[in-house]
């Protein structure tokens, strides 16, 4: 399998009223197609920034980000937007949605924006909602569904254009442990079907379900641990332990 993301010597510095804040310093890593990578690290270590720069939502200061064979720094803003529309999906901790639109309209929005065949998009949205168990909520307003349901709707939206990679910034951060477990189950299913996932999380239990965990401290990658693909729910406990002890070593 090929590399879907190659990051080399990525630096990101925020300039602020004369102060400069170096949030990422010479970060390099790779992600295989269809891989499930977690990013962990203390608060303020630059995890979200990494996600934003890799997905082209934020400019990088120096270094290179190559997504699916294309160098982001050589692309126009408009092309990056298009790339994001067609090949990336996003899930946030807060379930950001267009508040005035119903659940289904939110889900299909990127599909319609990509000018895909609308009947096909509607069909895919139906299938996605079916498989994530929120089909009955299609016509509900955003304010009328629970946090866990909304996060599943966000997953549907992220998947509507069949992206190569889904970026998830603390997708379970706002959920209780039961809802978090369900969302993770869905993400694993998504990953099984071939979509790569790059996820930021604070939860060991959540990160333990991914193939590989990258540990970010003070603007840089401290180390990584390969856990391999999770096969069944029974593995959680052992993976959890393994990751936990590794994190302890890193100074978690």
């Amino acid at each position, binding site marked *: 399998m090929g590399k879907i993301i190659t990051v080399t010597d990525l630096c990101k510095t925020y300039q602020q009223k004369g102060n400069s804040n170096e949030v990422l310093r010479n970060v390099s890593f790779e992600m295989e197609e269809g891989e499930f990578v977690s990013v962990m690290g203390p608060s303020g270590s630059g995890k979200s920034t990494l996600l934003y720069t890799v997905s082209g939502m934020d400019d990088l200061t120096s270094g290179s980000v190559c997504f699916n064979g294309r160098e982001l720094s050589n692309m126009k803003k408009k092309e990056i937007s298009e790339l994001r529309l067609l090949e*990336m999906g996003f899930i*946030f901790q807060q379930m950001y949605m267009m508040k005035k*639109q119903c659940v289904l309209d939110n889900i299909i929005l990127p599909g319609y924006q990509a000018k895909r065949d609308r009947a096909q998009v509607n069909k895919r949205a139906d299938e996605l909602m079916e498989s994530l168990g929120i089909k009955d909520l299609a016509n509900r307003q955003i304010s009328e569904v629970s946090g866990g349901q909304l996060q599943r709707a966000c997953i549907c939206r992220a998947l509507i254009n069949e992206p190569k990679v889904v970026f998830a910034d603390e997708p379970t951060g706002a959920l209780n442990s039961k809802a978090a477990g369900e969302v993770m189950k869905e993400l694993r299913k998504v990953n099984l079907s071939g979509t790569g996932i790059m996820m930021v999380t604070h939860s060991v239990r959540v990160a333990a379900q991914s193939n590989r965990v990258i540990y970010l401290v003070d603007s840089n990658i401290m180390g990584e641990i390969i856990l391999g693909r999770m096969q069944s729910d029974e593995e959680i406990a052992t993976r959890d332990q393994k990751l936990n002890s590794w994190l302890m070593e890193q100074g978690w």
Partner: protein
Amino acid sequence: MLGYILSVFISLIGLFLILIVIMTIRFTMIAALKEEECEIGVLRAIGADSFSFRWLFAEKYIAFAVIGGALGIVAGLPLSKYVLSMFGPGNIMPSDAEIVVIGILSVLFIIALIIGFSMLVMRRINKISVVDAIRGENRAERFGRGGGIRLHKRRIMSPAFFIALSDILGRFKRYAFLLVAYTLGVLIILFVVNTKNSVINPEFLKYSLTYQTDFFIELSDEKLNDYIKRMSAENKNINEMINNDIRKAGIKAHYDNDHYNSMGILMQNGLEINSTEWSGSGDISQLSYHEGSVPVKENEAAMSWSSANSLGIQLGDEITLKMSIDPEKDGIYEGSKEKFKITAFINAMDSGVPIVVLSQKYDKNPNGSMSYWATIIDADGSEKEEQFRRLEEMFGPEQVLDSMEYTKLCLAEYSQIFDLLELVMGVAVLFILMLMTYLYSSIFIAEEMPETALQKSLGFTNGAVKASHIFRILILSVVSVIVGEILLQTAGQFIVRVLMESLGITNFSLMPEFIMSFALIPALIMGAVLITEWFTLGKIKKADIRNIKDV
């Protein structure tokens, strides 16, 4: 009449301005309040009473009003003097002191408004619980239903258009003021332009008894001298001689001549009312009739409606006219009295001096002052143009005016004032609409940063985000233009009818020039608004992914 029309129009624009000012203050205050809700919430949590923040809040705006007002007076003094001076020296100019007093009064008015609004706006605060204010979760309108339209049921509507439309429908209140301002702006411009077109129009000359003007000959000095020399020899008036000459030259054109005389109407109570009497060979059935039937018999007459109305004369009444015509002719001496039956009222601007039109049969005073009912070319289409050209050959191209040129000449005074009104109001209204678009749009963009960040994270380009903003303004301006056009045909027609009725014209209606009213003006207004919007949208670029936090 001029002063009257002018003051009506200026009052209209004044009202418009006041409305806009009120709306804008209210809107910006609500927007600012939303921004500060959080801090206010904290303040309340600490225990400050609500009255004190109303002042806290109002103080800033009062300071703005005072500074703005002072600047306005300083800058406005020369500007208003300049504008007033354009209306001609005939108008009495207010003194500097008056302008300053008016300026100060208006600033005080605005300050009072701002204080009032602060109190009103801040009342909202009392309705919000402290916790809600801190969490910023009282923005109930954000959870509107998008006006009930559903993207997934749309086959072709673009997402950007959908976002714009559902936003307008779902949060209508937020846009109502902008809609009203646009509509009023459209209405005012349409009203001024259409009134001008309808008044500076050959049709309007009917109300000074000229029912048709195909041409008008302004005799050159040379020609005029010739005719004056011939006058005594031929014992005819100039129009009759011109008619003869044109006929001899084989041109199919003629004057419908008439005569008018000063005379008096003898009222039953013995009063004598000065009036003018018109008669002659013209086709008086072509005048504009308010009521009744065209006088045909020798002793029948029509009278201008507004004077008849104020003198209490009714259809069928008999009036006694004290004729004052050439004493040597026809044995009718100055002061002789004749009785006429009023069979019709005509729409005519008589400025309070009644006009009496006698039937074609009445021919006892051929030598009154000479005038004409109409100038007529007896041909149609291209032949009419050909005849007109031949008149130009005969009298000199500079000397022969066409219908519109003649109308402008007759109504020169109005024509100038209307041109000026059109310019001043057009510029003022457009400027205000552009300013409002900028102001509202800036606030919308600031408020919608989170939504913008979300859309960008989904892969919307800057262009796509801008498109939905443009669509929103486009929808609002299209709706405003439509409503404005409808209002012009209803309320506008009504106002103009009332206005004209007071001048003695009862059947007046605006005659919209199609391209001007339905294409050029809408395009101008929408163009100005959309261009402003486009420049304002530069700020969209600044939306950062981290703005998404406040969705």
